[in-house]
């Protein structure tokens, strides 16, 4: 039981919070104070104006995640906390990847790869090209690995957002 509690994996925690100034600070401050090292956090609107959704990913053991969930739930501005199970969750992340373009051949290669990944070219400039990739974090990692052969100028990832299926 203890051993099982110490196996590390990635957890996705979905949180409904009050949509008001300072709430993100309270949550992120708690992570820092209590030594939780989170991988990503994304905050955005929900179907209700007065609520926001905060999606947090953390790599840790189950005991750490249990404590994180309890500490989040303890915040007065936090209304609901759930740990999403990977099998029944739709997970998406968006990344903007800006690549160096050496010549016309590289440019058409990148466009081809982008199509294979069902990604979109969103900006073309003389020395660079920017691709928008959406999908699971694994898919984005795969695209970035491939794209790195062209030389990556900049990357911006949103961190993941997620919803339970059904």
């Amino acid at each position, binding site marked *: 039981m*203890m051993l099982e509690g110490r196996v590390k994996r990635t957890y996705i925690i979905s949180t409904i919070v009050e949509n008001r100034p300072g709430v993100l600070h309270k949550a992120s401050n708690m992570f820092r104070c209590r030594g939780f090292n989170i991988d990503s956090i994304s905050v955005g609107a929900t179907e209700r104006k007065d609520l926001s959704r905060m999606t947090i990913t953390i790599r840790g053991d189950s005991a750490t995640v249990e*404590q994180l969930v309890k500490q989040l739930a*303890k915040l007065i*501005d936090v*209304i609901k906390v759930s740990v999403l199970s990977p099998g029944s969750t739709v997970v998406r992340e968006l990344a903007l990847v800006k690549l160096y373009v050496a010549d016309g051949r590289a440019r058409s290669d990148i466009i081809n790869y982008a199509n294979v990944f069902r990604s979109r070219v969103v900006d073309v400039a003389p020395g660079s090209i920017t691709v928008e990739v959406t999908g699971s974090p694994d898919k984005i990692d795969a695209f970035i690995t491939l794209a790195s052969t062209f030389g990556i100028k900049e990357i911006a990832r949103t961190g993941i957002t997620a919803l339970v299926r059904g």
Partner: protein
Amino acid sequence: MVEMSGSQALIEALYKEKVEVIFGLPGGAIIPVYDVLLDSKIRHILGRHEQSVAHMAEGFARASGRVGVCMATSGPGATNLVTGIANAYMDSSSVVAMTGQVPTSMIGRDAFQEVDIIGITTPITKHNFQPKYASEIPKTVKMAFHIASTGRPGPVLIDIPKDVQNQTADMVFPNKVEIQGYNPNISPHPLQVKKAIDLLTKAEKPIIMAGGGVILSNTSQKLQAIVELLLAPVITTLMSKGCFPENHPLSLGVLGMHGSAEANKLISEADVILAAGVRFSDRTTGKLDEFCPDAKIIHIDIDPSEIGKNKAIDVPIVGDLSKTFDMLYDSLAKRLEKREDSPWLKKVRQTREEFKGIIIDQGKGLSPPKLLKKLRELLPNNSVITTEVGQNQMWASLYFKVFEPRTFISSGGLGTMGFGFPAAIGAKVARPDVPVIDIAGDGSFGMTANSLATSVVEKIPVIVVILNNSMLGMVAQWQRLFYNRRYSAVELGVAPDFVKLAEAFGAQGFRIGSIDEFTKVVKGALKSEVTTVIDVPISPEENVFPMVPAGKGLKDTIYG
């Protein structure tokens, strides 16, 4: 609906919360509130430093079971409150702190006396608020008191920009508030209670570890009923000292780094521990891996995040202690037969006898254990004791027996030197009918001794007993025991002369040289209408024993 200013709404809302007293210190950014306060029925007690007003509010809260209220201005007023707020947070005390703030148009511009007190206090408050419109004030106050006083209590801060204090609005004062993300009334899960009952009825060597939660939930009597049914000895923590009468045959005293010898020994032998309202702090458990590794632990707490935070638990019960004790008692009463004695209790008695010879009054003459035992004899049982932090506190914990809840008030989690004296003033305001005594050290008392002015001017007479070793005694003890007697920055010298200091403030001061003198002076002080400072010179070499060295397990207790 009634039109009034934010300040008027604030005072009105406090009045509706039945606030009778505010401990505070004004400044530029809170003058509008003080202006309204002048015409209010609420008493204001003027502190001499904001740290002290926060401790006074906490002393008031802990002695009365009500919410303590303190107030300060923006900037340095607010930052000075911080230690007091952190203390209340660590010890789960219901305190509402209010601070003035620069006007909303100036926030973020580094205005005069501007500080981000919301940011600063986020990790040390249960919640904090900064109303941006005067109309939010009534609801904010209602929520602040609700949050501070329910569930696991804690401090709440309301930071009010000056323009919001002045702004007028149509005010609505709600009688109740619903906070979506806050549901403090938690009933224990019956299945978990059943598991606890199964363990407790089979236990051969049960121990009850009662924590500060017992005092906060006012469940001392329910605890006692369960204890007598189970015939389980009771160990308290520093925070719960007094929740179970220490002259009861089943009381083992306080557990921990300076716990009683029998508490530290017997908990390690227990097979089932019923831990109620505790948080397994490091000063209580010693090295966690070695803390009762073989015992089954039942942990009841209203704060789910406490369960499993420090110690793995066999039977977690999230719930209100009062409801949980009721359920436990009802089931236990059905399942257990009334007993008179058990082999475990024989063992308890035997262990006590064993330690009787080991734990003696160390030191000659005016030794702290002797003084504190004498002090206990001189005081009525319902006297309220506060302590400073350090050796004085641990001697008080070990040698001053407490019989009633809310009569022992000490800075447990934060260990704030300077806490005891202002807390005593706050406690005396809450309990003017009983003597209030601060058991102090010279180092700690010096930190907030200017509260003598408050105590004298506001006519709040308390007694301060300074166990004066002219040292930062606890640090000196560690340096003596673990740093080869290399005393670094612990010698305070004989400054100040505490008798003259007391007299300078209009209090009375005595220096005593014998137990007889001590008796006489305490008796006089109990009859006096003015604050009394009793300076008791003790040996600077005196150690507090028993002691579990930092990072060691309870079994590594040093007895002297």
